[in-house]
């Protein structure tokens, strides 16, 4: 499903546009996902008044543009091409705790407008702040929004518009999960990555494997077995553990680099393993793949602790293959 964005000329960096009504949560989302702001501190964010453009340099380069809520993108004074040319995805944020009919009207107008010139733009609707809603009501709201958007678009002659819907909140993992899915659509190598992960899990009795961007905790690929948010959560929490401990004990001791250079057995890629008490088997495994990416595996119930060499070998193979298809982030 790795569909290329409208990648004409230009710098070729996919652009993620965050749009939606005022106070819908756009700036909060980008601060939490890309700047690790604790969710509770978003209460103090100031209203965005100008387009805020940020470049993210990670496993791939992309830009995040945070729009002020009231902007009229189709005002002739505004250079539409300039905004939408390099676009990777349009993320439309709707506050699910608020009246959302106006937001839908504006969303639809935007989609219809763009449809003429840029038929391939992915439109990703984040039904946001769902943490405040009960499970039942949450589903109802998402259904209702989906229905209204799709109906109205087809009334205007736009059938099967490429619009996806996600329920999100900055207070749990859902926002990272949604962003992961949005970004995966922008990675042309995705099918290859998935095939590599599939073969890895088959060879090592792994239950689920994720390739994570360590900094943002977005996963850029997983094997093709069914995914559930629970597996993502445990892997994502595990990254926190490893990153935090590495920060605490990885402080700069000065002569460190020199030492590492001399020592032939020095470890280049950090790795981590957890074994469980109850079953004394491997449970979680993490291995740094390159500067940006880490492989995290949830081991199967039958993965005994002594199977580590098999894992090492297969992960090595995976790592080499990845370097071929994704030649980013070599050290």
């Amino acid at each position, binding site marked *: 499903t790795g569909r290329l964005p409208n990648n004409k000329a230009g710098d070729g960096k996919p652009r993620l546009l965050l749009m939606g009504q005022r106070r819908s949560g756009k700036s909060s989302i980008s601060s939490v996902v890309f700047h690790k702001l604790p969710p*509770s501190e978003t209460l103090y964010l100031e209203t965005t008044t100008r387009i805020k453009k940020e470049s993210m340099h990670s496993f791939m380069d992309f830009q995040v543009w945070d729009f002020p809520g009231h902007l009229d993108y189709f005002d002739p004074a505004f250079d539409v091409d300039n905004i939408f040319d390099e676009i990777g995805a349009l993320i439309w944020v709707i506050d699910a705790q608020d009246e959302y009919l106006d937001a839908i009207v504006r969303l639809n107008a935007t989609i219809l407008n763009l449809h003429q010139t840029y038929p391939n733009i992915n439109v990703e609707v984040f039904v946001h702040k769902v943490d405040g809603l009960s499970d039942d009501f949450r589903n109802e709201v998402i259904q209702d929004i989906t229905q209204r958007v799709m109906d109205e678009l087809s009334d205007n002659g736009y059938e099967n518009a490429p619009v996806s819907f996600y329920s999100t909140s900055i*207070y749990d993992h859902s926002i990272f999960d949604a962003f992961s899915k949005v970004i995966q659509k922008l990675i042309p190598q995705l099918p290859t990555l998935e095939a590599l992960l599939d073969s890895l899990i088959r060879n090592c009795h792994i239950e689920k494997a994720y390739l994570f961007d360590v900094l943002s905790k977005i996963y850029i690929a997983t094997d093709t077995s069914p995914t559930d948010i*629970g*597996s993502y*959560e*445990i892997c994502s*929490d*595990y990254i*926190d*553990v*490893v990153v*935090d*401990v*590495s*920060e*605490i*004990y*990885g*402080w700069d*001791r000065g002569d*460190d680099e020199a030492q*590492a250079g001399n020592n032939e*057995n*020095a*470890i*280049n890629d*950090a*790795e*981590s*393993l*957890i*074994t*469980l*008490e*109850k079953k*004394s088997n491997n*449970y979680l495994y993490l291995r740094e793949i390159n500067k940006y990416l880490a492989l995290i595996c949830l081991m199967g119930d039958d993965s005994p602790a002594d199977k580590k060499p098999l894992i090492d070998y297969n992960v090595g193979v995976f790592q080499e293959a990845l370097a071929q298809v994704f030649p980013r982030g070599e050290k």
Partner: protein
Amino acid sequence: MNSSRRQKQRKVLLMGKSGAGKSSMRSIVFSNYVAKDVRRLGATIDVEHSNIKFMGNLMLNLWDCGGQDGFVENYLTHQRAHVFGSVAVLIFVFDIESREFAADVVSYSNIIRALSECSPGAKVFCLIHKMDLVQARLRSQLFEERSEYIRAASETFKDTVDFFPTSIWDQSLYKAWTQIIYFLIPNAATIEGLLRQLAEVIDARELILYERTTCLMVTHVTRDEESQNPFTDRFERISSILKTHKQSMAKHTNIPPGSANFAEMQIKTGRFMFFITRLTENTNLAAAIPPSEQVFNAARINIMLARSKFAELDIANKPRPGLQQA
């Protein structure tokens, strides 16, 4: 310290105005709640007791005393001797957001008076709580001001009372409770001595002993260069990391958080190696060592061999045993 039997049961009072956050912190530290779960707690009616086995030979007898005025009145009058008798530690929680700080301190004084009457040898810890609600740049000054004001009202405990800023939303909670627990552990020095020997045998940069259920630090040993580690809050940070991870693991494996224990966690990087493993029935040992497979493997074996020595310590105050290298 000669009557080690009597020291095993330690009565700890948790007091403070209703809504100050007493039950919240108790649930997080001792019952595996996560911070956002505490909204579900109701006001405590009268006293809730919990017994927490800590390091084998220490039994915490925690009295979470509901803080509504009627209850407090009752503690001070009809139940005075019952509540305030034979107390080892009083933890008094102040809500930083309280609009009646002066009144809170008056109520604190009444309690202090009862305590000094019935348990003059007790130790008092004051927690200035919900600090997350104060803007970061104002925190330390406000904390100092409040502490001084409260100290002035501490009567016979004036010189010994300790203050901590806390919030359930960060590791400050662990920092405060670590100090409290350290105060209560009768044989901390012995444990520390043994731990230091072990650290030398395995050439560890740092060893940290954690209680398994609460993930609170019992004690630590830091050697050589590691004493320059710029993260001075690392002990409570690791407590908090371990606790969060325990919850995450419990959720995913459907094992109750109380028993979602890992046998071992290891992290190997080019700069350090780290592992945390079970030491005794009630403790986990975290070790930070130089980045070398040999050291790593030897360390694990030596820790395994040292288990029985620590297990003895865990049960009773025995004379300090020696360690041999594997």
